[in-house]
């Protein structure tokens, strides 16, 4: 193994590969920051550029894009409460309040350091124990996927802020939105209103952009009537050693959560982020401060979302099963380069495989440097007057929604959901539960129906699988503790 690692490192030590990684990181930061442009789109856009490149440089370019686009989503999440990617939805919960308190620089600094820690942790786990982690991926079936979704939904209580009832209603609305589209088992359309654009369900990116950017733009527009210029404070950027030390347990816990969620195919990065946020809140000595703008609230989701990267490569490289949309595109790139992912990959193409993994590590280092160097530049967005910022936000929301399927229908849908989001916002209904339930609802529903087929409709058989029992206990515990904690804080 170490010979292959060294050989992989040698493949990367040339100007072409290093430049490719750097270009990928720079492009990924921009793509991730722009609402509507996801890391999946970014990786897909770069595929044609890799055709003539040697494997190390090709995967370095893609790896740089993947790694930094996940981080890039946090920039707009923190500065203008509009996550650039679905992975940054949980970062808005404390990131934007930090900006409102004049701590935008600290929030961005926390995001980049957390992303680096999570990215390195996930990549090192991939490097050293990928075959062992692959066993976990094989043990997860539809019952476990359903229970993971259910566990993820308990996080709704945590992100409901002022009212649990309103949070639950938001979550239920998200579940309802998740039922739109073709029923994958019965084959009939649900709530599509005979619109072809809804047959595959509500596009997540359009929903995300709509629910976050339109309410934010309209809120800023309304506020600009009384406040002509928003105080644009960046504050300090680098965390002190004391702060980094205080965040270390959060880094480690969130990295483990992110890596494990990344290993499980089909669950998705946002789940890791919200679960990490919930767990950070649960283990915190001051849980009532979450949502008011604290560094733990930014560190938890940002560490987790970058840790997912390393985890998502485990099923791809060891089993040939892409664990996420991004790794599905990677699978295509690997086939183009003549690599066959699967159990024999590490033995037949060891140096190339390890160059992919080490490329991710180098990309994380470049991401840290670019992120730290660019914080003050990114934060210049805050200096824009509201009457300029509002059309900018709406413009990127419209173009980002169009770019998904080249369809104006998606733009219109984004706008309608945005208006609903605005009405929810002014009436005190939180948005995060809607997005979380929209992601988890379809995953959970499909997994539940598959489980019923497996168990011949006998639900008792859930309790015969050890991993399912563990997840049931975790879910019940999380639900009870979350309700207790929120009721106490509301008293």
């Amino acid at each position, binding site marked *: 193994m170490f010979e292959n690692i060294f050989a992989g490192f040698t493949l990367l030590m040339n100007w072409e590969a290093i430049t490719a990684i750097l270009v990928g990181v720079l492009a990924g930061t921009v793509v991730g920051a722009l609402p509507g442009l996801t890391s999946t789109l970014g990786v897909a856009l770069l595929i044609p550029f890799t055709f003539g490149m040697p494997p190390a440089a090709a995967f370095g370019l893609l790896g740089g894009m993947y790694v930094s686009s996940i981080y890039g989503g946090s920039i707009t999440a923190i500065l203008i409460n509009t996550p650039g990617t679905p992975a940054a939805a949980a970062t808005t919960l404390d990131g934007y309040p930090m900006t409102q308190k004049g701590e935008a620089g600290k929030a961005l600094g926390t995001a980049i350091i957390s992303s680096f820690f999570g990215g390195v942790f996930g990549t090192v786990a991939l490097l050293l124990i990928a075959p062992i982690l692959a066993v976990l991926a094989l043990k997860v079936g539809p019952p476990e996927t359903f229970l993971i979704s259910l566990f993820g939904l308990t996080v709704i209580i945590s992100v409901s802020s002022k009212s649990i009832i309103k949070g639950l209603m938001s979550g239920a609305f998200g579940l309802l939105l998740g039922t739109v589209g073709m029923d994958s088992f019965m084959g009939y359309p649900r709530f599509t209103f005979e619109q072809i654009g809804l047959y595959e369900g509500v596009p997540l990116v359009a929903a995300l952009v709509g629910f976050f950017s339109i309410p934010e733009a309209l809120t800023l*527009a309304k506020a600009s009537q009384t406040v002509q210029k928003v105080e644009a404070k960046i504050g300090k950027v680098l965390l002190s050693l004391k702060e980094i030390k205080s965040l270390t347990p959060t880094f480690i816990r969130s990295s483990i959560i992110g890596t494990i969620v990344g290993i499980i195919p089909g669950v998705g990065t946002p789940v890791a982020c919200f679960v990490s946020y919930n767990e950070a809140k649960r283990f915190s000595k001051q849980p009532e401060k979450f949502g008011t703008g604290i560094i733990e609230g930014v560190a938890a989701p940002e560490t987790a979302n970058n840790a997912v990267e390393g985890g998502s490569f485990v099923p791809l490289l060891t089993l040939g099963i892409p664990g996420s949309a991004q790794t599905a595109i990677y699978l295509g790139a690997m086939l183009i380069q003549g690599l066959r992912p699967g159990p024999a990959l590490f033995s037949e193409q060891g140096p190339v495989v390890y160059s992919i993994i080490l490329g991710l590590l180098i990309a994380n280092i470049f991401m840290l440097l670019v992120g730290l160097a660019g914080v003050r530049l990114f934060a210049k967005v805050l200096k824009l007057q509201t009457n300029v910022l509002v059309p900018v936000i709406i*413009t990127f929301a419209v173009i980002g929604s*169009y*770019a998904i399927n080249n369809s104006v229908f998606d*733009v219109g849908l984004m706008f309608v959901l945005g208006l609903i989001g605005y009405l929810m916002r002014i*009436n005190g209904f939180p948005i995060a539960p809607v997005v979380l339930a929209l992601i988890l609802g379809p995953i959970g529903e499909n997994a539940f129906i598959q489980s019923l087929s497996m168990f011949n409709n006998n639900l008792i058989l859930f309790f015969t699988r050890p991993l399912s029992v563990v997840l049931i206990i975790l879910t019940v515990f999380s639900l009870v503790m979350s309700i207790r904690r929120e009721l106490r804080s509301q008293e």
Partner: protein
Amino acid sequence: MYPRGILLFIAVLAVFLFFNPQNQIKLVISNLQRGLKSYAKVVIIILTIGVFIALIEPAGIYTVLPLFSGGIMYILGVREVKKLSLIPVFLTVIVYLIFTIVLKVPVPMGIFD
């Protein structure tokens, strides 16, 4: 069955919310105190966005965008002619460079198609 179950759940929660009116009443009162006038500009902006979205495919994003962004700035109180003309053009150029030149993301070109 599943969507109906969710709707029933929302209905039950709505009943709970109705009987736990304290927060909701405060919100309604504060919204009413601000008055509908405070939402007038928001309604105009919403209508403007609707027109923008309706026109991007027939006219093209690069045709409509300068007019839209200038219009929004005007609604939000900008009156300097220099700002109203230069900033929308600058925004359009930035969008063109990022999406069409660098990222090669398809955007509706409308009359330039």
